[in-house]
């Protein structure tokens, strides 16, 4: 009987975690949980580079920050903080204001100095060239 009770408590806790944490991923850093929304992305890899497309409608170029550190790409920012006026005139309000955050770990070493980012029609395009492949190092094990 006690086992059933424990299982239910666990289920309850798990559901709480999923619903409180809007995106439900335990692996994401804390900043993800405190952000208001997460933009949708496409990530492509070509032999020369990685390309990331991020949907950021209504976000000005100065409102987004892109960083690349140890092959971890972070995209964060905030929008429309100043526009919280005249609440009562809205008949429909689906847009989410405030901060956004996404982070990706890139599968290969990249050249962080050559990263390029531009926005067109509300889409942020980030191009990250791959760094030159390190030459495999052969280590000879010396005998006794």
């Amino acid at each position, binding site marked *: *009987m*006690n086992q*059933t*009770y424990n299982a*239910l*408590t666990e*289920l*309850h806790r798990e*559901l*709480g975690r*999923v*619903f409180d944490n809007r995106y439900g991923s335990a692996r994401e850093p804390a900043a993800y949980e405190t952000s208001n929304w997460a933009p*949708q*992305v*496409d*990530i*492509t*890899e*070509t032999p020369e580079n990685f*390309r990331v*497309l991020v*949907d*950021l*409608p*209504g*976000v*000005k170029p100065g409102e987004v920050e892109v960083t690349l550190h140890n092959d971890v790409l972070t995209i964060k920012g905030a929008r429309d903080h100043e526009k919280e006026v*005249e609440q009562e*005139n*809205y*008949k*429909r*309000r*689906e*847009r*989410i204001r405030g901060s956004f955050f996404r982070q*990706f770990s890139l*599968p290969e070493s990249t050249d962080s100095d050559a990263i390029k980012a531009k*926005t*067109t*029609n*509300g*889409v942020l395009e980030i191009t990250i060239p791959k760094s030159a492949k390190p030459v495999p190092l052969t280590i000879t094990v010396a005998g006794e």
Partner: protein
Amino acid sequence: MSTFDRITNNLRDTADYLADGWQELWSKARNAITRFTPAQHEDHPLATTASRWGVLSAELRETGDSLEIMLEAPGMESQDFQISVQNQSLHIIGRKHLHQDRKEGHYYITERAYGQFERIIPLPCQVDSEAAGASYKRGVLELTLPKQKSAQLRRITVE
């Protein structure tokens, strides 16, 4: 409290929690989630793998003499929209194209939707669609629909 009561309470709490969470999610996202129909015979790796659902958030504000509508639709051009007003509702049809120059490579994550979509937004009053204005900036479509004379806020001065 007996074990049976505890189980009953716990079950009820769980059910309430689920219902609340779903209700919140539903009320927030229900209208913004839009179906995308992919373009036929598209020769592009994303034509079959891209998401079929996009989140196009809309906003409708009413001022004294007009309605202001915003729709988030990033990655399009102004000519990709077809906008009309029918039976006191706004119809927006859009076509988001796949870029042929982005065909190469391996896609790791594809969350963005492509293809055709349609959103119908009910309007709170009659509008003069002839005098409507539209612009597309930073991925946001903005429309201004002047209200018909009869629906406008009239200020009456008391002598």
